[in-house]
């Protein structure tokens, strides 16, 4: 069989648009071609290239869970040429999607364990995929604890889902905003995510932790968990270097000899410590 042309995108129809925060939107995407929908599978942690024809492609993790079939979701901030063009798309417009790319979180290895999520800003979307993946088979996991923060109350994403998780008895949720980002009505925590994590340390017994965020949160969060007794091999992150091809060729995402796109994006802290800090 001829190898697949990895540069030809699937055609996706924008099935719904949700405004999450200023400049941040979630698109639900459905395959235009049913055959594509049937053969496409992915696992939590993988990413895709989302393209607006004539403008280019951008890289985001798949934000919906593989347990929710029939669609994919991505959440993005309108920042550059492509994400601005993406933000200008309308319901039922067709965009391109390539993927899924990269490795995955080893969810089956986590059965029976307590899971801790540490994340900030629009790094919740890549973990939202994992969170729902776990919640959709809740009985297989121990305690689930989520630390999530944003610059301001307005910048929190998935506000309805945060409400839902906060009201569930089987999820422990810490939501915080950076100092100065609170509103008079804000009833959650105030403080940077690493501070909140240090003040409310999660138990490391029989636990794994997943950290996703801007690079500064990854660089600060992982050592805190390590200090709290988490084995470095049980602390996971997803690195989000600049990418173009998604298949280990274009060279943009390299960290030393490692291609984040094909060797990652999921790495353990143990692995990250062996790599140069080029992320």
């Amino acid at each position, binding site marked *: 069989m001829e190898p697949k042309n990895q540069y030809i995108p699937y055609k996706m129809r924008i099935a719904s648009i949700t405004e999450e925060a200023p400049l941040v939107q979630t698109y639900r995407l459905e395959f*235009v071609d049913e055959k594509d929908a049937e053969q496409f599978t992915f696992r939590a942690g993988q990413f895709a290239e989302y393209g607006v024809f004539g403008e280019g492609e951008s890289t985001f993790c798949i934000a919906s869970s593989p347990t929710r079939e029939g669609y994919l979701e991505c959440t993005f901030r309108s920042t550059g040429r492509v994400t601005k063009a993406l933000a200008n798309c309308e319901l039922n417009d067709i965009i391109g999607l390539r993927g899924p790319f990269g490795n995955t979180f080893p969810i089956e290895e986590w059965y029976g364990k307590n899971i801790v999520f540490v994340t900030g800003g629009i790094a919740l979307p890549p973990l939202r995929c994992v969170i729902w993946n776990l919640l959709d088979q809740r009985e297989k996991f121990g305690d689930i604890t989520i630390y999530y923060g944003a610059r301001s109350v307005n910048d929190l994403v998935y506000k309805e889902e945060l409400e839902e998780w906060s009201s569930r008895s089987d999820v422990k949720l810490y939501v915080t905003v950076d100092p100065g980002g609170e509103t008079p009505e804000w009833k959650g925590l105030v403080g940077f995510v690493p501070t909140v994590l240090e003040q409310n340390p999660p138990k490391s017994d029989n636990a794994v932790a997943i950290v996703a965020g801007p690079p500064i949160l990854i660089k600060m969060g992982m050592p805190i968990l390590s200090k709290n007794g988490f084995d470095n091999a049980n602390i996971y992150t997803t690195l989000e270097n*600049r990418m173009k*091809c998604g298949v280990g060729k274009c060279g943009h995402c*390299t960290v030393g000899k490692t291609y984040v796109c094909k060797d990652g994006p999921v790495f353990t802290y143990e692995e990250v410590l062996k790599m140069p800090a080029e992320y």
Partner: protein
Amino acid sequence: MEIKNIKLSQLPAFFDQLIKSGKVVIAPVMKKSGKVFFERVQSYSQVATDYIQTGFSAKSVVFPKVEVLFSFNKTDDGIDIKDSITDIPETIVWGLRPCDGSAFNYMTEFFLKENPDVYYAARKAKTTLIAISCAKADDACFCTSVGLTPGSTEGSDLLLTTMGEDVYVEVITEKGKAAIDLSASLFSVNEERSKEKYLAKIDTKFSLTEIKERIKTAYDSAEWKNESMGCFGCGACAFSCPTCTCFDIQDEGTQNKGQRLRCWDACGFGQFTKHASGHNPKTNQTQRRRQRLMHKFQYSVENLGIVSCVGCGRCIRVCPAHLNIFENILSVTQ
């Protein structure tokens, strides 16, 4: 390996048969500037014979500077997408140097070993490489330091070595055989012999075995800063390099009709690793220069088992800041 002989005076006749075969023939051409570049030619009279190295390598034959990945056209009921792989012509590259031939070996490993690239595969399958050994070299040449010689056969399909009035022909692959079969009567049987005295003499700058060992601990060398001080990130080294494979993907046209392009990029460019947020993992030229050199001498060895520098010397000749890759490598591995 099959060895053949052709009279030097018969080379034009052989070349004309290649042209007549209808394939695209790319050969070195002397420009008014005195520099030599590969371009498509129609007759042997256009071909440069007295040159040390071409300005660019022939890598653009298999990895074009700008390549159309696909074109798209919005219609009433969706979008038509069409790739251009079927339009790739059969191509012969004439007169590349043995170092460049071996660069094709590296590129083939890189593009096809894992997640095979269908564009590279299609172009490479249709390309025949006829290399010519080096009788002359300059101060920038250092193939002998990276495990090659001015008469290496790796990666090429045919290698021609001029020996007085005769040309010693090494038939390396089936593609090479197919090329000489186009004018079989011009070639006679030959015996294997040493090319040594007909090849350029190139001093060894370093021991590759030692460098490969020492570079493993070179990441934190203070010398990177000194060695990269002059670099202003123009990317000339990467664009002229026969093994640099980094690329960008850009769209051209409108949202209704256009093309998605793959274009050469360079790890020395400041924007190369910059995130949308503004964060840049490789903030300065020292980090970027280190990435380039570590990739050539360590990362590609770890990933593919190949040193991805062939010693062609182009980056040394074109660098406006006079950076010298083998001097840089020596100083960071001291």
